[in-house]
């Protein structure tokens, strides 16, 4: 039987209360939301917090929708909510593509966006999707809210810019009218972590690519991004040759490791091919006001 080691439990009733609890209990305390990363880690003794601070009651972290010229995704938004939201699909189909292949429907009912990002697993899907769209993470501490570009958020495997005493409260994604986006993943079986996955966002203007965002996961891409391939694309005409070359560049710059999901050469091949595919789909979606499909 797998059960976590003993810990104490606190239920936060507001963001300031959660921050006060984090301060009182110090670095051996952990925030718990959906628990679908942390509880398995605790069962395996890979995490052994002394205190859990439950933020599930903080409705202010469940906001999801357009605010001004950005999409705001609260940290406590469940995967299933992100997948079900029509505005998310209209402006950022990449998130619907990704959520369809994250875990399974029952896990998606419980797991949260913020929890996935804070777990910072090097194979996590949303990390690549948010990297592709260049989101901003909103991190709140005793001194107020810090805005952290998502590509500075992940410091390494299982390590983020959220300092002790701070809380990820949400993500903001600037809406680019007419942009297209897409996500694609290769997995061994339904609901598994990716062998490799890629996401992209493309904004076109005057017949050329005005903005390119490429996210990669499970292939050792630094900050879940492919900046060299992005730089190659900007200013070029969209098309099969450019997308294939961008895939080749992204594959050359990532650093996959062999594991039970496959050898490094296979993952590198997937990185290039998936980048090519998501660029093609993002370009097809770009310019269509409804975005999705």
């Amino acid at each position, binding site marked *: *039987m*797998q*059960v*976590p*080691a*003993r*810990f*104490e*439990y606190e*239920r936060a009733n507001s963001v300031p209360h959660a921050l006060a609890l984090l301060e009182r209990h110090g670095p051996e305390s952990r925030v*718990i939301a959906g*628990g*679908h990363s942390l*509880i*398995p880690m*605790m*069962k395996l003794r890979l995490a052994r917090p002394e205190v*859990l601070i*439950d933020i*599930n009651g903080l409705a202010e972290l469940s906001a999801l929708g357009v605010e001004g010229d950005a999409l705001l995704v609260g940290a406590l938004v469940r995967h*299933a909510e992100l997948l079900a939201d029509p505005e998310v699909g209209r402006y950022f189909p990449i998130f619907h593509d990704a959520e369809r292949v994250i*875990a*399974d*429907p*029952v*896990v998606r*009912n*419980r797991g949260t966006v913020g929890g996935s990002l804070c777990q910072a697993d090097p194979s996590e899907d949303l990390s690549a999707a948010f990297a592709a769209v260049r989101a901003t993470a909103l991190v709140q501490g005793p001194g107020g809210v810090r805005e952290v570009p998502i590509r500075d958020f992940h410091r390494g495997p299982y390590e983020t810019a959220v300092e002790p005493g701070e809380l990820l409260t949400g993500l903001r994604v600037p809406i680019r009218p007419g942009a297209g986006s897409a996500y694609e993943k290769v997995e061994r079986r*339904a*609901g598994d972590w990716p062998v490799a996955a890629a996401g992209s966002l493309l904004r076109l203007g005057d017949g050329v690519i005005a903005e390119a965002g490429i996210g990669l996961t499970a292939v050792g891409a630094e900050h879940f991004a492919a900046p060299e391939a992005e730089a190659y694309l900007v200013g070029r005409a969209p098309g099969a040759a450019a997308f294939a070359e961008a895939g080749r560049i992204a594959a050359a710059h990532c650093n996959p490791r062999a594991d039970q999901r496959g050898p490094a050469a296979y993952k590198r091949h997937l990185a290039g091919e998936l980048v090519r595919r998501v660029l093609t789909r993002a370009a097809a979606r770009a310019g269509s006001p409804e975005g999705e499909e």
Partner: protein
Amino acid sequence: MTVQITVTVNGQPYTRDVEPRLLLVHFVRDELALTGTHWGCDTSNCGACVVHLDGTPVKSCTVLAVMCDGQQVTTVEGLERGGELDAVQKGFAECHGLQCGFCTPGMMLTARWLLDRDPDPDEGRIREAISGQLCRCTGYENIVRSVRWAARQEAGRRGADQGRADRGGADRGGADHGGAGRATGEGTHEGTRA
């Protein structure tokens, strides 16, 4: 450290002092003796432990009981109403939706949730809904048929209710006759929806 929690399970409130590390699956099985919820892989993979938490299926091996204070839980024991089995339960009985039965409670709870949101799911929708649940007998074909059977039966019942409303209660309308599911298989459109 223990924490007092009150959780309403199948409509009945239970107050218990629990250790924070107690998982919801063990709370319902060991504290409440509701052993219909099965405890399987312990890693949120197999779905044998699925219960509804505030109306939504969750894997109870990966939820702490203490986090459910003040919330509603429905287990497989709560599917029947007034001694009558839910249409999903009847479907599993009619269509041989179980062999060993280990995955069945979780499968039925997810199926109930699916039908509440999508009363006429095709085979693809059903398979997607249960994609986080493993049948170790690999009896997925009959599980899909069972859910389709339940969908048809409920469509027939809705049709019958509509028929009674339209015709002053004189007609059974398009009420379905159970065994059709076994003959026609899943994913068909039998026209039982009035």
